[in-house]
């Protein structure tokens, strides 16, 4: 599936062009007013395109009927927009009902989705949105967007109004969910940490233009210019530790008597480093969670981590 966003004459979104592969989460990020939300809303034509084109599976979105296009794209946004007068079942069933599904099928689907987003498929279907917390409402919002199983989802700062603890949980749950259902997602945020966490790739925008499109790791390692470098933050070295796990490091053989602290293979380097610092060691036993006995499969040195994070080319011209 390809989407392209070439230009608008207005600078709101200026000659923006990129492709999102099927099943990928592409995060659009940038400062306020950079055009990221505008770009997102152009995909389901909440905002009309003034130039260029957007294609889905090679077909221009202009060739599709407006309602058909929108029913095939899940939309989740910060204000959630659940219909307060409809039960959760009716909310989730909105698009399926428009598409002529039977009542029984809608109910079944709604229950299935509630379970998928971590709510109670029995008790919650007949309740109204006003009876739920903000975080729960957004879970329902996600379920509603996925009701008719659209291949594409647009998410406009979906977790922006949720308190940090609930947001973290929502992000994790959503990533887990995404592993199961693999939607093609464009995700808008202004929070670089969220972008790093959620994005298979990240598009940094500024004044309507695309500044850099890269994976989180690549973005943190090689910011294209000073703007990107300052946007991702001075601590981008540390942030990179979050997107890498111990699997990315070639392990040393286990040390005799143990290293004094341990971690699993899928532990982020961030956590591994933190554990070393906390235990005052420079080495960590690494265990594979897949093996039965929690056997130590190797060890990792502190400098192996720092070497991985240090720029591959120490004299990179972009990197001062």
């Amino acid at each position, binding site marked *: 599936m390809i989407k392209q966003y070439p230009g608008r004459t207005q600078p709101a979104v200026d000659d923006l062009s990129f492709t999102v592969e099927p099943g990928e989460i592409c995060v659009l990020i940038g400062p306020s007013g950079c055009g990221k939300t505008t770009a997102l809303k152009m995909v*389901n034509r*909440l905002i009309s395109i003034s130039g260029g084109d957007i294609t889905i599976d090679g077909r221009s979105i202009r060739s599709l009927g*407006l*309602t*058909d*296009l*929108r*029913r095939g794209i899940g*939309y989740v*946004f910060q*204000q*959630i*927009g*659940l*219909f*307060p*007068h*409809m*039960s959760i079942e009716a909310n989730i069933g*909105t*698009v399926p009902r*428009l598409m002529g599904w039977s009542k029984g099928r809608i109910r079944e689907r709604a229950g299935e989705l509630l379970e998928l987003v971590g709510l109670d498929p029995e008790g919650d279907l007949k*309740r*109204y*949105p*006003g*009876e*739920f*917390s903000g975080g729960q409402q957004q879970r329902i919002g996600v379920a*509603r967007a996925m009701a008719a199983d659209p291949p594409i989802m647009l998410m406009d700062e979906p977790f922006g109004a949720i308190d940090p603890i609930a947001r973290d949980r929502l992000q994790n749950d959503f990533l887990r969910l995404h592993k199961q259902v693999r939607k093609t997602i464009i995700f808008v945020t202004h929070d670089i940490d969220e972008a790093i966490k959620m994005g298979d790739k990240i598009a940094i925008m500024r004044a309507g233009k695309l500044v850099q499109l890269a994976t989180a790791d690549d973005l943190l390692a090689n910011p294209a210019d000073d703007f990107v470098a300052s946007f991702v933050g001075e601590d981008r070295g540390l942030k990179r530790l979050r997107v890498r796990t111990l699997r990315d490091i070639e392990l040393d053989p286990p040390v005799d008597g143990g290293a004094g602290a341990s971690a699993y293979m899928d532990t982020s380097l961030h956590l591994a480093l933190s554990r070393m610092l906390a235990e005052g060691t420079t080495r960590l036993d690494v265990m594979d969670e897949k093996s039965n006995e929690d056997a130590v499969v190797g060890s990792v040195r502190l400098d192996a981590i720092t070497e991985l994070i240090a720029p591959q080319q120490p004299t990179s011209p972009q990197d001062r």
Partner: protein
Amino acid sequence: MTPLPLVLAAGGGPVIPSFGKASNCVVQNGQFCSGWFFANWHAVFQPRLIEHIELTAIAVGVGMVIAFSAAILAYKQHWFETPFSLLAAFLYTIPSIALFEILVQITGINRFTAEVALVGYTLLILFRNTLTGLRGIPPSALEAAQAMGLTQTQSLFRVEIPLAMPAIMAGVRIATVTIISLATVAAYIGAGGLGEPIFDAIQTGFKTEFLATGVIIVALAIVADVLLVLLQRLLTPWAYRRRSA
């Protein structure tokens, strides 16, 4: 209340000529003669009460159809709001007796004339409330409806009107109580209703009839309001369901 000039003539010209044998209470025009009230419920009050309910229901019903259509139009076409508001406000401010007088010249002394006037009084309240309700819908719900591919008509009937329902019902409640009170004046042009016994009591000075009718009107207004609240709960159950803290 001013003391009524009663002539309790011994030999003739009784105060209440048309209601058969008078009890002591009636002859002395006591504050409230319950015996007379119950004896005359079927003959005097019940038919008038039914007429009164009909007058009110038709006025609010027809008023709702007109005001609702006008409010939808004004919601979609902004220019329509001001002219209709002005018309409705103009009708609302004309004193009722004067409006009846004017209309009688055109449509005659009958029930139709009364209904025309009463409908006129409902318009401002119903129009304003409906429009306010429609305009007060959370923008996020509208955006969601649009993004999910609802057509404008689907959005209007499935999302916007249901969400405006609490405000619409609030308007219906105010209009109903207002019309129950105003409809008494309709008796002035022969439209019947509970205004008849009131006018009668004013002319004859018969306190029981006056008081009884007044109480019935107030009771009717309260009952109607309670019924409408129940209807509102039925129509908008979601508005009463909130997350318990």
